């Protein structure tokens, strides 16, 4: 960490990152519901309208397809719009604009029209919210080519993932782990090294555990607790979900021979399915046990009084780690 490192929440890191992007590039503008005076329901855009004006921090009508569709037009007119979707499941009205237009226009125009649009989606559960406020929809965007997907697991990565997303000339969806918005950590706003698509947060020799976003802090505890049980866990944290940092993961799996994949999204057709299939393709002969996936159940995200049962937690992850060790 350089001298610039300061401790802040992930929310503050995202706010600082948006601010830095807007200061650096006058073409960056923010759009979304309630992002102006209110600063967004999570206050990620707090103070930005006051400082950059209503023309750069734009409260939009309540229509997600409209928000993304007009962001595309704004990008064609030369801007770099950063769109906030208020909660994960409210992105679905914009699904068509995202997958048939935003993802495909660069290709449709024969590579002539860049679409530097960033879509920010607070995602995941664990904050006691009503229906539609706790989902993890990354997989249903990953299946469509043309989009980049990113996430973060601590304030520092949140800062830099947002920088990278806004700088990209490809459309990027940034999945922000909303239950970590209040997590504090060191942020180095002058860091020189790019974070990469995946990173090793703990080195280990027995089993590789790969997680991303909101589950990574839980996985860090898994590492400690597993150590107490005599299991050495290597923790891989994904910051990019498309493309996936498969090379780093492959090396890790080849070293440990065992893999546990954790995410909040439902296991069925989730990111873990792709990770498992890829590792089988790349590291089959190194695998000493079946790959284990720990994820949400194949159910609608439940009412909040049941979410502790739905969400993968320390116990379930640890259980899976122990399980693959007994094979």
């Amino acid at each position: 960490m350089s001298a610039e490192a300061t401790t802040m929440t992930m929310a503050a890191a995202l706010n600082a990152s948006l601010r830095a992007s807007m200061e650096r590039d006058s073409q960056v503008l923010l759009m979304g519901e309630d992002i102006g005076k209110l600063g967004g329901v999570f206050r990620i855009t707090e103070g930005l309208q006051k400082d950059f004006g209503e023309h750069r921090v734009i409260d939009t009508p309540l229509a997600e397809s409209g928000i993304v569709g007009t962001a595309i037009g704004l990008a064609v007119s030369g801007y770099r719009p950063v769109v906030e979707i208020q909660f994960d499941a409210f992105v679905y009205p914009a699904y068509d604009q995202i997958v048939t237009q935003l993802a495909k226009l660069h290709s449709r125009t024969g590579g002539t029209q860049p679409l530097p649009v960033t879509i920010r989606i607070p995602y995941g559960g664990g904050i006691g919210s009503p229906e539609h406020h706790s989902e993890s929809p990354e997989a249903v965007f990953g299946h469509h080519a043309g989009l980049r997907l990113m996430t973060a697991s601590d304030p520092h990565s949140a800062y830099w993932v947002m920088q990278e997303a806004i700088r990209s000339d490809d459309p990027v969806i940034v999945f922000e782990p909303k239950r970590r918005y209040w997590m504090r950590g060191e942020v180095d706003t002058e860091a020189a090294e790019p974070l990469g698509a995946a990173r090793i947060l703990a080195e280990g020799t027995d089993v590789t555990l790969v997680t991303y976003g909101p589950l990574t802090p839980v996985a860090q505890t898994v590492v400690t607790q597993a150590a107490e049980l005599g299991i050495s866990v290597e923790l891989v944290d994904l910051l990019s979900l498309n493309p996936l940092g498969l090379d780093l993961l492959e090396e890790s799996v080849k070293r440990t021979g065992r893999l546990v994949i954790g995410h909040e999204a439902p296991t069925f057709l989730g990111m873990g399915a792709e990770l498992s299939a890829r590792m089988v393709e790349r590291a089959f002969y190194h695998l000493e046990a079946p790959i284990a996936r720990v994820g949400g159940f194949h159910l609608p995200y439940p009412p909040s009084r049941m979410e502790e049962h739905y969400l993968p937690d320390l116990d379930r992850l640890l259980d899976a780690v122990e399980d693959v060790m007994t094979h």
Partner: protein
Amino acid sequence: MTQTVSTETEMVQALDAEGNRTPCPEYEDALSTLSADDMRRMYEDMVLLRRFDTQATALQRQGELGLWPPSLGQEAAQIGLGQALRPQDFVFASYREHGVAFARGLQPADLLGVFRGTSHGGWDPQKHRFHTYAIVIGTQTLHATGYAMGMNLQGRVGNQNPERDVATVTCFGDGATSQGDVSEALTFAGAYNAPVLFYCQNNQWAISEPVHTQTSADLYRRGEGFGVPGVRVDGNDVLACWAVAQQALDRVRSAAGPFFIEAYTYRRGPHTTADDPTKYRSGAEVEAWERRDPILRMQRYLHREGIIDEAYETELEERGEQFAAEVREACKAMPDPAPEEMFSHAYREPHPLVEEEKESYLAYLAALDEEADR
């Protein structure tokens, strides 16, 4: 500052802000059918709704609810509609329609469960002819329109039989009018002449966004270009809301086609208990609307007409307190659902993956318990 109170003159009104009965040209016939009992019931329902809402807000502050979307200020718009409904009508509403929900026989616990987090709804829509609250903005307007198309197909409208002809109603907010789904609902309703009433409570705000962020046009005219005529009513005037709703519902039941009502009102509380309205609106604006309080207005009118008196008010307040106590109790009595419940209704027919996940999770829980016991 937004001048949200200024358009009073364009609205249908039967009671002014002081509770004076004003002439209400096209609706006098309907209004004349209201008995003293009818009007007292409207007043009562508004008072009890407000008491409920205050209690629910308090329960949220005490940690018994995760969140609460208050109906404060919208009592007339909701109770006026609620009382105009007939038993056979069917309502598709969003998350703030507590007054309409009560009119359909929902119990406090039904509504509280959604915000306590014990359920996403859980009541039988057919039993109350009131669908579960919609949280994704605007989706319910299409469900209502489809239901109304079904009533057309089944010959359940236009029989000149008010006991049988069905009106379908969908409630939504000013913000919702921006959603494509609401426009598509207007499209389908217009194209199929569907017997559906679009009931928009323009409470001036969609969270922090004033209505002019959504549109520069008058909302009650939104339907015209789709073949759905509309009217604006003073949403803080329960008599006017009732009269306009009653007439529109009759129209809809008679198979004359869809209709749009904009109930012009105000959300006096925060959007939900998680919201901080001081960030985006002035105290002066809120006060201006307090002076147009729907309950006060009706109270003044009923007093003046001798329909209610102090004794009645005291008794009503007691009933309110008793109701609040029941609400508190009902809320706290709601148990956390058992984990197996989560697996119960994702599908109606057996689903092997759900079965497998259920069994393995319950086995895992049992193992955890065993471990803990040791």
